C-alpha cells in the first residue's frame, strides 16, 4: 500500500494507529522482546543469579544435541505423541460418526464424551493415579478379576509413557469428536444419495467414497491440533511422575522447566525453548503444505 491518497484515508490510518497502538506495544513487550531475549540467551551459558556468562554461539546448540537427557526428552515426547495422536484422532472420528448417526440421545452422548475436556487436568491426573495404583487401583483389580496379571502403570520405566498416553487420549477424544462433528455437518447430504446410486451400497463404502475425502481438511486440522497439544504435555508429568521413574517420562516442557527453573541454567533452557519453537514451526509448515494440496480436492 502506498501513501494514502486523500484526507479521508489519512484520517482512517490515524484512527487505525490509535486502535492498534496499545496492542502493538504489548506485543513488543510480551512477545517480540522475550522471543529475541530467548534467542540471545540460547547462545550463552547464562545462569540465573550469576552476573557473568560466556558467549557460546551455535556451540550451545551443538552441546544440546550431545545432551543425553535432552535427546531422551525429545524421543519420549514423540513416543508420547505417537501414541496419543493416532488413537485420539481415530477414536474421535469413530465417535463422531456414531453420534452423527444417533437421533435420540445425540447431545447427551456428545456432552458425556466432552466432559474430560473441561475437567481440570491436574485433578484428573490424580484420579488416574489412583485408578492405576499398582496394588489397589481399580484398573489392576479389574485385570485380576478377568484373569490377567497386574501392570505397574506409572511406576515402571517401560510403561510410564503408555500410562501417561492413556490419560492424554482420554482427555483429547472429546475435543477431537466435536471438531469432527462440525466437519460432518458441513458435508452435503445429497452426496450420499449420489454415491449410493453410483453403486456405493454399504455404509462402509459410502464412508470411503464421500465422508473420508470430504472430511480431509477437518482431519488435517484435528491431527495438527492434537499433535501440537500433545507436544505440550506437561501437567500430567509434573503432577504424577516428575520425569521419572529413571527419567523415562522426561518430556520437552518438563526438561525446559527443570533446566531453567530448578537448575537455573537459563542459557541451556533457552536453547531448548528455541528447539521447542522450531518443532512447532515444522508442524505448522507441514500443515500448511498439506492444506495447499488438499484445497484442490475440496
Amino acid at each position, binding site marked *: 500500500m502506498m501513501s494514502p491518497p486523500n484526507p479521508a484515508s489519512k484520517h482512517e490510518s490515524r484512527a487505525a494507529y490509535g486502535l492498534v497502538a496499545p496492542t502493538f506495544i504489548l506485543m513488543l513487550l510480551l512477545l517480540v522482546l522475550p522471543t529475541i531475549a530467548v534467542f540471545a540467551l540460547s547462545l550463552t551459558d547464562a545462569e540465573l543469579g550469576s552476573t557473568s556468562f560466556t558467549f557460546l554461539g551455535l556451540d550451545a546448540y551443538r552441546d544440546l544435541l550431545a545432551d543425553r537427557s535432552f535427546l531422551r526428552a525429545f524421543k519420549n515426547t514423540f513416543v508420547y505423541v505417537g501414541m496419543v495422536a493416532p488413537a485420539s484422532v481415530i477414536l474421535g472420528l469413530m465417535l463422531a460418526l456414531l453420534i452423527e448417526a444417533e437421533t435420540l440421545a445425540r447431545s447427551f452422548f456428545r456432552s458425556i464424551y466432552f466432559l474430560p475436556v473441561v475437567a481440570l487436568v491436574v485433578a484428573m491426573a490424580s484420579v488416574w493415579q489412583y485408578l492405576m495404583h499398582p496394588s489397589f487401583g481399580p484398573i489392576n483389580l479389574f485385570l485380576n478379576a478377568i484373569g490377567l496379571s497386574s501392570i505397574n502403570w506409572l511406576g515402571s520405566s517401560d510403561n510410564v509413557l503408555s500410562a501417561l498416553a492413556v490419560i492424554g487420549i482420554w482427555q483429547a477424544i472429546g475435543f477431537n469428536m466435536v471438531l469432527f462433528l462440525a466437519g460432518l455437518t458441513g458435508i452435503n447430504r445429497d452426496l450420499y444419495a449420489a454415491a449410493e446410486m453410483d453403486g456405493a451400497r454399504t455404509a462402509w463404502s459410502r464412508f470411503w467414497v464421500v465422508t473420508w475425502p470430504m472430511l480431509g481438511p477437518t482431519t488435517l486440522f484435528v491431527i495438527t491440533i492434537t499433535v501440537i497439544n500433545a507436544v505440550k504435555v506437561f501437567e500430567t508429568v509434573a503432577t504424577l511422575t516428575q520425569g521419572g521413574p529413571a527419567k523415562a517420562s522426561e518430556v520437552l516442557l518438563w526438561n525446559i*522447566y527443570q533446566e531453567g527453573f530448578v537448575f537455573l541454567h537459563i542459557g541451556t533452557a533457552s536453547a531448548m525453548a528455541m528447539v521447542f519453537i522450531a518443532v512447532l514451526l515444522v508442524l505448522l509448515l507441514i500443515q500448511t503444505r498439506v492444506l495447499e494440496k488438499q484445497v484442490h480436492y475440496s
Partner: protein
Amino acid sequence: MTVPGNPLMTFLRLAVLTLGALVMLLPFFFMISTSLKPQSEVFSSGLSLIPQHWAFVENYTKAVTRIPMLQILCNGLIVCVAIVFFQILFAFPCAYALAKLKFRGREMLFGLVLLGLLVPIHAISIPLYTTARYTGLLNTLAVLVVPFTLSVFAIFLFRQFIKTIPDDLIMAARSDGLSEMAIVWRIILPNAWPSASAFAIFSVVAHWNDLYWPLIAVSKIHLATPPLGLLFFRAAEAGDDYGALMAATVLITAPLVLFFLFAQRLFIEGMTMTGLKG
C-alpha cells in the same frame, strides 16, 4: 447413514456408545466414590463404588482445611476473568483495524500476529520470569494475568469474524458521527459476540488448567490457582490418603464441570469454533 431404522444397527450403535460413555465416565465415578470412602476402605473395597462406611465429612474437611480451598478457587476465578477481560479489551480494536481499516504497516502487523501464534508461553517463560523477578512482580496475582493480557490468537480469530461484518454497518455508524473506538465497542462487539463468547470459553478452559506459568511465578499457597493448589495439597498430603485427595479433586474440578453442564451448547460451539480456526 441414509438408511434409517435397521434395529440391529441402532442397538449395536447404542451399545457401543453406552459402553464408551461408561469408560469415559469411570474416572469421575471413582473420583466421587473414593472421596466418600474412609482410608481403610480405599485399600480394601476393591471395585465396589458404594462406600460401606461414609467418610464424607472427614475427607472433605481435610480437603478444605489442608489448603485454603475457597481462596484457591477464587484466585482461579479472578485470574481467568481478568485474563479474558484484558484479552478482549486489547484484541478487539486491533482485530477491527486489521479487518476493516487501511493503514501502512497492516501487513507487517498481521505477520507479527501469525508469528506470535507460533510462540507459546512455555518458550518465553524465562525472560518473562526474569523480568517479573526484577520488577518484584513474582508472587502476586498480577503476575498470573499480565503475560496473557495479549492474545494473538484472539486477534486472529476476531479479525476473521469481523471481516464478515458488512461495511455498510460501519459506514452508517461513521455517518452517525461515531468515533472508530465507539464503533469497535458499540457496533462491532455486539455483532461479533459469538466469536467473543467462543474465545472467552476457550480462554477460561485454557487458563483454568494452566500449571506451567503459575508453578514458575507463584510459590505462596494463598496465591495458587486450582492446578497449583492441588499440587500443594499433594505435597502436604504424604502417603496414600486417596480419600482426602479425591475430595480435593472433586472440589477443584466441580466449578468448570458445573459451568459446562449448565451451558453445554455454548461450551461445545465455542471450543469447536476456536478449535477449527486455530
